[in-house]
């Protein structure tokens, strides 16, 4: 009989913030696309079915609810990762991880066959999980620039003014959506147990508990 080891992978705070983030991100992206449609920056509009809020006022209500949820939840995630041993060891990219980034890319490109022996997250994942919050911060700051271009005029000029800040806000959103799609793909190929571990915390690994 095949033996499984149960490994505690994701602490409660990580699981909670992960799923709250999933909801908040879904809300701000879809309602944001409806807001975009009210005055498109480029020559395209977003199909209505992909948007949330019905009309501009509804979309704004959703967006502003979603943004507070996103920011509060994100703050909790960041603080946890900075102040817990778990976060510092597993999530935040350290100098020691840098050497491992490139070999991991080669592994994913199927040039290297050997998966590096790493802790829970490999260096490439740590790079992603450290970069993505920075992109999200860009999304938040560019959002402040277009929500409060007068009260925070300094942030607006940092992004090149009100109109350019809108473009940046869209770019940050697009980058995060691309990460999300990549993330979904990686989850899909990593198997069921990996997915379940983000709900229960526990992950089944096929290695026997203690090698005889």
């Amino acid at each position, binding site marked *: 009989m095949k033996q499984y080891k149960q490994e505690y992978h994701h602490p409660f705070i990580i699981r909670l913030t992960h799923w709250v983030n999933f909801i908040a991100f879904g809300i701000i992206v879809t309602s944001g696309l409806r807001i975009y449609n009210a005055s498109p920056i480029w020559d395209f509009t977003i199909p209505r079915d992909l948007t949330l809020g019905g009309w501009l006022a509804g979309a*704004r209500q959703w967006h502003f609810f979603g943004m507070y949820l996103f920011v509060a939840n994100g703050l909790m995630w960041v603080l946890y990762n900075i102040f817990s041993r778990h976060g510092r060891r597993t999530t935040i990219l350290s100098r020691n991880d840098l050497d491992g980034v490139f070999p991991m890319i080669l592994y994913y490109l199927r040039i290297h066959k050997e998966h590096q022996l790493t802790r829970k997250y490999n260096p490439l994942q740590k790079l992603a999980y450290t970069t993505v919050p920075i992109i999200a911060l860009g999304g938040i700051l560019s959002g402040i620039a277009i929500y409060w271009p007068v009260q925070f*005029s300094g942030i607006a000029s940092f992004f090149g003014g009100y109109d350019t800040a809108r473009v940046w806000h869209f770019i940050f959103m697009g980058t995060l959506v691309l990460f999300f799609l990549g993330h979904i793909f990686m989850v899909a190929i990593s198997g069921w147990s990996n997915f379940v571990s983000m709900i229960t915390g526990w992950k089944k690994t096929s290695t026997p508990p203690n090698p005889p």
Partner: protein
Amino acid sequence: MKSQRHLKLFYSRRKLLKLSPLLLLTGCDYSARGGVESFLGKFQQFTDWVQEKVFDPDKLAPEYSDKEMTPENGFRVNGYSTDRPDIDIEHWTLRVEGLVEKPGEYTLQQIASLPKRVMNTRHCCVEGWSIIPKWGGTPLKDFLKTVGANPQAKYIYVECGDEYFTSYDMPSCLHPQTLLCYEAYNKPLSLEHGAPMRIVMPTKLGYKSAKWITKLVVTNEKPGGYWEDQGYDWFAGI
């Protein structure tokens, strides 16, 4: 034994069916949609409260040079329904009511005799586009002083020559860049831009810059607004 159980099941199913009108009821009265909408409406009171706290009465909106200004042919009109406001420019007056010492009708000449402020500030539409026109007009705070408005009052409500109406918090009305605007690009306002007088409030979204104003009321009871009553945020600070 088996048939009895079957009967019981059947019976309970019938009981369940009798309750089915309740399902319809929940469909109408307690729809998730209505619940979500009222929740979002409540949450909007929170975002408005934050907006009020973030608003700095001393913070000026950036003013731009004539080079950065939107050229006059780009001075966009956002007509939403009315192209023909009920305005007689010749005999227009601004009616002032409420918590003021000197209520009454004020003519354009009276208002324009107060010091004028000309400024190139950004007009941000809630839709997302923006323009930088050259505005000219009387700072509202100076006019409020002239009519003896109670600066302790909380709100100001305006009514327009079309169906439009909106309202403001007093601190935003006392902001030095809030204008009773009667000029754009050094010329009298055109009818489509709100002649003879409109509000210009660079610290708020465009729908707060009401055109064709006819009446101004100083009050302590929070008034609504044309768009605000339909779901747009009331404070609308930027």
